[in-house]
């Protein structure tokens, strides 16, 4: 029997479609102000109201999805790459290479991610590329640990020996034979990583370290802080957008983990 695609997957795909089509769904510059400041939701032409500079909340939310998704997906992609590379090297080679990679990842795991990201961006200056890089560099150890454990368990497997006897070079064995075997747990981690990265980016935006030229949900919440007493909508809608997006990626990770768990089948 064919099952309907899981809700979280549909939600995530819709969000990505919205982000890609943002300038088509909501044309014009979302950051251009107008005289209609602080209009409540339901006002003519402004379904979700306007902010203190007269900018349309809905347009900013739609365009803000781009920053959240770009940071979430790109940083988790880069950290996936770093984690697989480091974890595969450690797990395959063992010995001192393993020890070095594991000590480094241990060090990274004791670092306070958010506070460090804040300070690096504060010193280096804002920019979406830097944010992606910082979050990725701080996030790879967990993936590396999982990959390392899986690969060192598979290193002596019969199909690996077969490939080796067939004369396949080691990097190719890892890439073609071993990595596909461990794709499932790694992809589950990646989905959860996206959620964490989106929360981190929102926190950076809230601290005023977002890219000033882009609409972002975190920066909207920063702006809302000064208007809590007069404009509740400036806080409620961006927060909901972040919460729903994070919930979707978390649920996607959980669903994938449950679906891929052989004990659940």
């Amino acid at each position, binding site marked *: 029997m064919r099952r309907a695609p899981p809700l979280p997957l549909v939600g995530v795909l819709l969000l990505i479609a919205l982000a890609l089509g943002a300038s088509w769904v909501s044309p014009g510059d979302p950051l251009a102000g107008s005289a209609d400041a602080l209009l409540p939701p339901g006002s003519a032409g402004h379904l979700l109201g306007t902010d203190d500079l007269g900018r349309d909340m809905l347009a900013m939310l739609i365009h803000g999805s781009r920053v959240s998704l770009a940071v979430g997906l790109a940083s988790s992609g880069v950290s996936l790459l770093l984690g697989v590379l480091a974890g595969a090297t450690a797990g395959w080679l063992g010995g001192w290479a393993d020890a070095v990679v594991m000590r480094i990842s*241990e*060090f990274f795991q*004791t*670092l*306070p*991610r*958010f*506070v*460090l990201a*804040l*300070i*690096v961006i*504060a*010193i*280096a*200056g804002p920019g979406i590329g830097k944010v992606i890089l910082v979050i990725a560099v701080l996030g790879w150890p967990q993936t590396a640990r999982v990959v390392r454990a899986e690969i060192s368990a598979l290193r002596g497997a019969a199909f690996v020996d077969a490939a080796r006897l067939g004369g396949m070079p080691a990097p190719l064995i890892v890439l073609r034979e071993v990595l596909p075997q461990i794709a499932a747990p790694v992809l589950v981690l990646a989905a959860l990583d996206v*959620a964490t990265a989106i*929360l981190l980016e*929102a*926190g950076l935006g*809230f*601290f*005023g*370290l977002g890219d000033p030229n882009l609409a972002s949900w975190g920066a909207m*919440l920063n702006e*809302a*802080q000064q208007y*809590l*007493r007069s404009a*509740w909508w400036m*806080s*409620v809608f*961006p*927060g909901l957008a*972040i*919460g729903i997006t*994070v*919930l979707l990626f*978390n*649920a996607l990770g959980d669903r994938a983990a449950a679906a891929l768990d052989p004990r659940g089948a």
Partner: protein
Amino acid sequence: MSLPAYIFRRLLHAIPLLLAVAVMNFMLIALAPGDPLTALVGDFPAPAEYVAKVRVDYGLDKPMPVRLVRYLGHLAQGDFGYSFANRMPVATLVWERLGATLRLTGTALGSAALLGVLLGLLAARREGGWVDRAVRMGSTAAYALPEFWVGQLLILLFAVHLGWLPSQGDAPLRGTPPGWEGVLVSASYLLLPAFALALRYVALIARITRARAVEVLRAEFVLAARARGASETRIMLDHVLRNAAPAIITVIGYNAGFLLAGSALIETVFGWPGVGRLLFDSIAARDTPTMLAILLMVSATVVVANLLTDVMHRLLDRRVH
């Protein structure tokens, strides 16, 4: 291995980690765009004599290894630089704010542990029952929401809409009545930020407690205790909680970094006069010495919290030996 030997070995393990954090701080200063002087002094019109003194003190005209040694030397003496934005030594500044942060994080963590364990045990009592489902759904949602937004929502509801609780700052030093009345006033300022900060931990602790409790409840010794006629409360406290404790403590201890990061955001939302708010202000003022001192302090706290967690874990969990 005996316990003192274990603690000693873990302490030895913590030292290189702390040193690595200090070196990382140094590299942030060295790699900062522009003059490293800016990173050491802050983006502030400091007096020329002070700038010249820092240049000599930190050996900025000397090669990198010399500068690193001098920097570490300053840290070892408790010298974290001078904050021109606040006109006082950074060490004094951070020290003054530490109490407020400890009060907030301590309250949040304490209530999160109590509430999380309680909810986790209630959920585990009837696996799949309505309490279980409610706790699981609630914790999934609580885990996805940015805590600073939860803080804003609490302000909107309890301070702006209902007008029950103050939304900004700590109880004023002057004007807070003595005795129990004063405690109530202080608590009214603490309640909202502590709750906003605690929520994620309630979710986390409830989840791990539930997972461990469900496992323990299936064990044969629980069946045996029931057969002996032990009450449900007794089983929960004596058997389940005791067996779940190491896992709960590990989750709490290993999330110390997240707690402090959350505190930075929550203190900013509620204008709470702690280290987190100081971090926000120092970023806004481009006061680099203060930022770097806070980073060092938070990293050291995480290393120490992990160390304490491992020691507690070993004390509680007999299987580790």
